[in-house]
């Protein structure tokens, strides 16, 4: 397997007044194509920042990030926006569905930014919703769905564009145990059936166990990885 995400010598710092806060320091990481990687660490360790940088939501202070064949750390904001549409699927902790849209319309939204025909959009949306088991809930609005169902719509929205990577920020953080388990099963399925590369930030060790590899961050540095138990089980 080749590395689909390549992070090299990454630095990220923020300024708060005169104070400079280093969030990520000298970070190097590879993620293989089709890998399910969990990023763990205490609050403030920089895991969400790392996820945002890989997803092209922020730019590094120093270092390079390559996703697929694109060096995203060199892209402008509008280039990154275009790149994200096709290459990144994002799963949020609080689903972040648009409440005025139906499940179908929420999933269709990113496709409106791509050059697809109406028929193609319809097919992809229906496939994505069927995959997450919500083929019969297409016309429901988020307010009419449970938390677990909302997260499944969120996952369908993340994969509908067939992205290069799927990034998940605490995807089970707002779910009960059963819904969380369903969501994690679904992510596992995406990896095993569709070969999706998944990067997941989580505090939950149980959730992290479902990943093939766990990467620990502490004070902005990688302190270790654990690819073994989950990998064996999922394979």
């Amino acid at each position, binding site marked *: 397997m080749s590395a689909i995400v390549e992070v090299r010598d990454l630095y990220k710092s923020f300024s708060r007044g005169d104070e400079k806060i280093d969030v990520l320091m000298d970070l190097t990481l590879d993620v293989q194509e089709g890998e399910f990687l969990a990023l763990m660490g205490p609050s403030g360790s920089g895991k*969400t920042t790392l996820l945002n940088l890989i997803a092209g939501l*922020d730019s590094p202070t120093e270092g390079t990030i390559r996703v697929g064949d694109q060096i995203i750390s060199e892209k402008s904001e509008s280039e990154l*926006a275009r790149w994200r549409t096709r290459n990144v699927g994002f799963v*949020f902790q609080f689903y*972040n569905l*648009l409440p*005025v849209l139906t499940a179908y319309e929420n999933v269709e939204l990113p496709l*409106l*930014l791509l050059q697809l025909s109406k028929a193609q959009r319809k097919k992809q949306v229906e496939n994505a919703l069927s995959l997450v088991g919500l083929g019969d809930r297409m016309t429901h609005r988020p307010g009419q769905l449970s938390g677990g169902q909302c997260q499944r719509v969120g996952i369908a929205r993340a994969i509908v564009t067939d992205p290069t990577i799927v990034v998940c*920020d605490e995807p089970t953080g707002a779910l009960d145990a059963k819904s969380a388990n369903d969501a994690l099963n679904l992510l596992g399925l995406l990896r095993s059936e569709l070969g999706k590369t998944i990067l997941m930030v989580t505090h939950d060790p149980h959730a992290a166990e479902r990943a093939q590899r766990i990467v620990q961050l502490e004070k902005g540095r990688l302190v270790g990885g654990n690819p073994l138990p989950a990998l064996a089980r999922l394979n």
Partner: protein
Amino acid sequence: MFPNAAQYGQSAPVETSLIELALYGTVALIGAIFFLTILAIITLPLFFGAMYLMELVIRGFQNLVDPVGKYAKLAGLVFRSLRRNLLRTALTYIALFVLTGMLTMLYGVITTIGKMTTDQENSQLVIMSEKFGIPSMMKPGYAANLKGLMRDKLPKEMQPADIDQNFMTWSFVGGTLDPAKMTQENSLFLFALDPDAVTNGMMKEQGLNPEDLGEDGWAEMMRIIDLVKQDKRNIVVGADRLEKIGKKVGDEMKLFGTNYKDIEFECKIVGAFPPGSRMGMNAAMRFDYLIAKLDDYRARTGKDHPVADRCLNLVWVRMPNKAAYQQLAAVVAEPSSFSNPATKMETFSAAIGSFLEPFKDIFWGLKVLIMPAIVVIMCLVIGITITIGVRERWTEMAVMKVMGFQPWQIMTMIVSEAMLIGTFGGMLSTWAVYFLPMAIRSITKAIGVKFAFFDTFHSPWEIVLYGPLLGILVGLIGSALPAWNARKVKVSEVFATVA
């Protein structure tokens, strides 16, 4: 000029105190706000109905091939966002409706006054009056002298096509039904003039024309004028004044002259001017009846009535153009023409301009301060609404950015929401203010509300276009800042806050 204005010295607006003016202004303002708010609430279903219809059309487009279908879906988002908080959208609409309505009304007043105080290149309505005396009181022979001067001293091309048909004299006659106890309820003010002046359209500015009266009203007016011509004692009284003095058409009455002392007029009311019109509180009689009564007085007393030699108050002439008016004014100004008393000639618009001189600061304030202030308030209203909406959807904006929406696309969505409310608010408000009075007038056959010698106060037709354009502009300006903020939303910061 109207007798109840400066020329006659009866409760002229120039005498209105500042406190009174402020009081009237405040009452008018509160009344306008109240009226417009009611109108806004009444038109709310129309607003939401129009929005819904537009959304249906957009939805129809969503089924078309891309890119039309795709963009229609994105446009649909704008409507849904506005439907998210109906109360807020409704309140914003009401505020914009009221403010636009006030702006439209002020614009109507200012343009009407502007139009009336601007000389028209063609058809110059000019007035000859006493140069130094207020009220103007000239010799009755001045009318014939002026006609003579026009014929002799003006080149043919500068003369009206028919001098007699473009000529009118006014004499002001005050009368009371009870000379012992004169009150508002038993008094009458009459214009003494040649009835043909009405037929010839010389009373157009006073609302006696087919446009203001409508076809039927004008035909009725012609019938009344014919009756007046039949007997010099026949008079026409405004419907409002008739009500005030408790008389009706067909009644006969004896009027005791108030400015023509010791003269009694035996009158028969043969018709009424429409209620609410500029002539609604006045009356008109034949000039030759006044002259006949002055002759009677001389025959009775052996001497001229004290006012007999000063019974001509104003002379109106319709000149073909400005150059002709200027030539005539120069002739009239010559001492050899009219010297005792000296006279002046001015256009009707200039006369109104002189009358409005004491109020020019108020009009300046309306135009330069109040109207722009209303526009600024409109921008603030829409800005605050959109800001609240954007703040509520801060995370959604970030999510859209994550999906790949470009900053300009998010900005466009926000601005479109504001422009949509602005357009509908502006459009419905100006249309209501423009078309409602028209509809009421056409249904009730009443003519517009007129004040003193002003034309009917109504908004110019172009306001129908300006309203929506103003709404678009206000929406654009008002939403610029919140849209810019939404455009700049930092995704990583939003989600850091959410987490």
